[in-house]
């Protein structure tokens, strides 16, 4: 018997799988509605940006420079400033929860700035509210950069305006940051969930026994089954991409020739992970739970989509490297926002290659060609 791959058999499986998809309302609904819902929820409802954050300000210096600093803060739109008469009063506002942050500018701030010493202003944050603190810190970085430009005389003031604006949006618009990340989440959910169900369904249905008794090879079953989901995943990715560009006005600064291979690598990684789950569990319910545990949750929580990986404990910074989502989010954000090419994204691409290899190896190794338990 010839043990070579037969395209006719792959196409037969593929056709059959397309029929299944088209006739199963659950799969279709998931594939069509899920990306839309996710993009709407994460893109619109969840506002990672904080606007009009109350900040108590005590300006003990009252000079041109100190007023400049508070102006930068005030004009950003992220802070709503209230003036306090003393540092103690500013502290009081923080303690009394009338403010989330306090800015205290000491008396000789302007003088130190003029004499090229390090000029210091103190920011006090309400540490009991973790999530806002991180964001405020992020904003303050941006603000500091703007302030540096504003006060450092060697930068021409006409360049300064344009450059600060760019930095500000690039760093601080959370939607621009979130929506490219959503590309990863949508693909992860669709790929893992749907593939993990497809092979498990054959086992549960009893049809795997029939398939295995025919001349078809496991690899042909796998390819035939994965291709329709690859197309589905690509469709969903395109949809999210268009929504990001047209709906949210996210810029795309990189090259599509970098993003598309990234998307393909990422989809195959998660398709294979779903397959691996499926061949191991052989049960739809278990497969679904395992996909949620190993695919969906980590790709939302540990991939850097919401919580920055740099802020995680060292163990997790390393551990998250086994998540394809971590690498793909870097590719997605890199191509969308910073216009990175293959050179800058070499590590994520390499990592996705390695993960793909490992997952494919594990999945084929575990694919049973018989009914041995």
């Amino acid at each position, binding site marked *: *018997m010839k043990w070579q791959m*037969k395209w*006719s*058999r792959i*196409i*037969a*499986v593929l*056709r*059959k799988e397309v*029929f*299944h998809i088209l*006739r*199963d309302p659950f799969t279709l609904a998931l594939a069509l509605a899920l990306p839309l819902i996710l993009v709407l929820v994460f893109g619109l409802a969840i506002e990672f940006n904080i606007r009009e954050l109350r900040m108590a300000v005590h300006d003990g210096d009252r000079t041109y420079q100190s007023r400049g600093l508070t102006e930068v803060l005030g004009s950003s739109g992220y802070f709503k400033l209230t003036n306090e008469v003393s540092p103690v009063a500013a502290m009081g506002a923080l303690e009394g929860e009338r403010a989330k942050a306090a800015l205290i500018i000491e008396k000789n701030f302007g003088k130190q700035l003029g004499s090229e010493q390090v000029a210091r202003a103190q920011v006090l944050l309400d540490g009991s509210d973790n999530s806002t603190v991180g964001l405020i810190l992020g904003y303050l970085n941006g603000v500091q950069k703007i302030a540096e430009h504003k006060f450092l005389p060697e930068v021409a003031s006409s360049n300064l305006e344009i450059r600060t604006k760019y930095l500000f949006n690039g760093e601080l618009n959370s939607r621009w940051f979130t929506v490219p990340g959503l590309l990863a989440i949508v693909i992860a959910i669709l790929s893992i969930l749907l593939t993990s169900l497809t092979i498990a369904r054959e086992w549960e*249905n*009893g*049809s795997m*026994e*029939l*398939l*295995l*008794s*025919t*001349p*078809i090879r496991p690899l042909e079953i796998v390819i035939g089954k994965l291709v329709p989901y690859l197309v589905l995943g690509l469709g969903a990715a395109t949809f999210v991409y268009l929504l990001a560009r047209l709906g949210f006005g996210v810029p795309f600064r990189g090259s599509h020739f970098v993003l598309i291979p990234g998307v393909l690598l990422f989809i195959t990684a998660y398709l294979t992970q779903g397959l691996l789950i499926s061949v191991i569990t052989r049960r739809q319910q278990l497969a679904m739970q395992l996909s949620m545990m190993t695919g969906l949750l980590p790709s939302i929580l540990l991939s850097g989509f919401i919580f920055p990986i740099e802020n995680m404990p060292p163990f997790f910074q390393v551990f998250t490297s086994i998540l394809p989502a971590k690498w793909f989010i870097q590719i997605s954000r890199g191509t969308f926002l910073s216009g990175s090419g293959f050179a800058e994204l070499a590590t994520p691409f390499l990592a996705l290659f390695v993960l793909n290899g490992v997952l494919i190896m594990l999945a084929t190794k575990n694919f049973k060609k*018989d*009914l*041995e*338990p």
Partner: protein
Amino acid sequence: MKHCSIEVQSLKKKLGSNQAIDGISAVFAPGVLHGLIGPEGAGKTTLLRLLLGLLRPDEGSVQFISGGQVVDFGTVRPTIAYMPQQQSLYPDLSVSEHLDFFAALYEIPADLYREKRTELLHLTRLQPFQDRPAGQLSGGMYKKLGLMCSLLRSPEILLLDEPTNGVDPISRRELWTLLYRMREQGLLILVATAYMDEAERCGEVYLLNAGRILAQGEPKQLLEAEKVARFDELFLRKESDLGL
């Protein structure tokens, strides 16, 4: 690859803690309708799966012999058709989509497939139901569709696991008629069934329990030799003999 027989030598298979097959030896000749008769859990399905290579034997061997020569399993396998006991068709695919799918898996040439398809649809009288999804077929029609899928590639060996289970009496009779036709074409047919009354329809019966063959032979001769009227009596007696 014409007229292949299956030789099973002291076959043993344990599934979990259960000794599913406990030393079975038999020769299944071509052109005969063999019946594996036994209650649930007798080891019928396991035996069929072992023959198909879907399970590996712990001890003993399964050999395919053609013209006195042992034939490599890889060569025989494409000529074996199998119909699992479990419902295993796709409920959302129609009768004709099933036939198309399996014809492609078996790589049946288009003209041959057309011919075969017409013949099978005629034989099974499923012609009017070509577009009905398998999930909406009656028990008998479902089994017939399963049988059709396995007969598409004109097999030499036909392994059927409880083909008449849950099928109404008339459809059962039709299925058996179909099997007789297949036998006339010289096929080796092995039917596993829990219905004792079906034993008499077979050319050769194997009474199976707890992974062992209790009795075997041509049905009428077997009944006469054991001086019983029916197979369930024979089965009960053999079982109590074993218990003694």
